[in-house]
């Protein structure tokens, strides 16, 4: 059972501080949901834990089983057990889904062990069938030409085969129709075990109807401002975040916009 501990994390992108002291502990077997208005840093948190080079950690630490992983490269974090199902999975033309997932699964195995290709093919086909991804998935190029729903299901397929210890699912429900949401929900729920800690980032209750969280966190302006149980989801669904803003005395959620001069245009000067 793995433990992810995020301690007093401050993160900036370019000159702007996005995360302002995030604290979160996720243990294997637990499912956490992070909700919050747009632009409050939920996806940033997931990307920072994964190690996206765009973000700078100003202070704080990210510990996986007691080891600080903030200095590790993205691939090293993945091999330690971190997984991020991305909000907008990248298309990689020319690389087939099968080759990619096979290479990824092999990369997670100890150096002295070799992937048994026959078993992997069966596992891949079984996972594709569970997610109702249709035939021919193995030979399609990675996410190229996939619908929004297919891309999200493909992220879950990778997660099923890579078997991470800690997984962030970043808005995995966006772009999914009702049936696809049910399929994803059922597959993710089936993966629940003491070997997997999950963090679901979502805006809507509908995903959490299928994947029941143990903890619900609300993030506002780069901080986790409230933690509770499932009752929080219903409250947010009915009342939005206004009650919380009032409770916390938050009046301005939107970014303060400063006027920027774009320079002057050439104007026609009347002849004297």
């Amino acid at each position, binding site marked *: 059972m793995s433990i992810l501990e995020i301690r007093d994390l401050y993160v900036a992108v370019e000159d702007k501080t996005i995360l302002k002291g995030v604290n979160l502990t996720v243990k294997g077997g637990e499912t956490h949901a992070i909700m919050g208005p747009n632009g409050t840093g939920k996806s940033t948190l997931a990307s920072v834990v*994964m*190690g*996206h*080079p765009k973000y700078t950690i100003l202070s704080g630490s990210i510990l996986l089983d007691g080891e600080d992983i903030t200095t590790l*490269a*993205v*691939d090293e974090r*993945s*091999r330690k057990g971190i*997984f*991020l199902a*991305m909000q907008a*999975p*990248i298309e*990689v*033309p*020319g*690389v*087939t889904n099968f*080759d*990619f*997932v096979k*290479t*990824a699964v092999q*990369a*997670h195995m100890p150096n002295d062990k070799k992937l048994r290709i026959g078993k992997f093919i069966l596992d891949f086909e079984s996972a594709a069938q569970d997610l109702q991804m249709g035939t021919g998935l193995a030979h399609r*190029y990675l996410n190229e030409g996939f619908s929004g729903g297919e891309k999200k299901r493909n992220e879950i397929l*990778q997660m099923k085969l*890579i078997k991470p210890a800690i997984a962030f699912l970043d808005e995995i429900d966006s772009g999914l129709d009702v049936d696809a949401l049910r399929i994803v929900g059922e597959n993710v729920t089936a993966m629940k075990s003491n070997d997997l800690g999950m963090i679901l980032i979502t805006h809507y209750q509908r995903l959490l109807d299928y994947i029941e969280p143990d903890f619900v966190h609300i993030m506002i302006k780069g901080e986790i401002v409230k933690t509770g149980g499932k009752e929080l989801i219903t409250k947010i669904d009915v009342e939005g975040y206004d009650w919380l803003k009032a409770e916390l005395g938050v009046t301005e959620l939107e970014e303060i916009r400063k006027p920027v001069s774009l320079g002057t245009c050439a104007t026609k000067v009347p002849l004297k």
Partner: protein
Amino acid sequence: MKIPNLLINELDTLLIQKGKITQTHASIKSLLNEKFIRLKFNKRKTNHSPINIIMMGQNHDMELSLEFAKNISEQINFFLIASPHMGPLKLSFLGKENVNVEITQMIIGRLKSPSHIERKVSLAKNALMKLTTAILMDGMLTMNDSAVLLGEEANFQSELLVIGQHNDDISITQKVDHKAKKSYSTLNNSLVANDQSHLKFDIYGTIDKYCAQSQCFQHSKGILLGEKAWIEVDPKLIINEFDVEAGHGAAVGQINQDELYYLSSRGLDELLAKRLIIQGYTDPFVTAFPLIQHQKYINQAIARKMGGR
């Protein structure tokens, strides 16, 4: 360079070396002299397996013409093994009415002095030719590719892979000339430049007047893997008719960082991730060769050109 065993052991192989055909194929008529070889492909009653051609480059100028008779379907796997001081080589691929020809060509070997290859394609009415080429030789090469679409519904589809390594200097001019209405052409180029290699492409697509409803597309993508590597692509369209579809695009740069991040987030280290992305470039060319042993040979050549990367 010797002929690799992987290639020579194949049946249905036509072998051209020292200006002579030393092994031939029942369905091919050949005419030759010291500097000119003409191969005529006629309709086969049985046995439709691909025909393999292995040609060894000569130190003097050479000309080889492949002529496809009306209404035939043929697949040709063509291996050109360049000699160190290869003289100018002229290759012609002539398709008559209603032919359906797929040619996969691989150019390998090490050039010690600059060499020149000219390839001419001519297609008659309803002729379809798919030409897939992998240029994996070392040294300095200039190549002039030209295709003339003479008949209505003539269709030329070219896929070209070039991998440069060390000080390779490869300069290619591609020209497609639409001389009939409803004629179609697509040129796709995939370029990889390692080390200090230079790859230069000049691409011309011309649609003549009265060649309405023709389609002419060019697309080139290049990956720079060496700090001093250099790729230049200059696509051009010369259109003299209104009712046509045409387009060109070229994208040259380093490996896409978003793609690298995505692959890394699944545990692939940078080297492995880059290898997989490059494999995505090269695989369509490898699999265009139908025989497994040919694919194995091409994969070996690609791995060598990539310096084991």
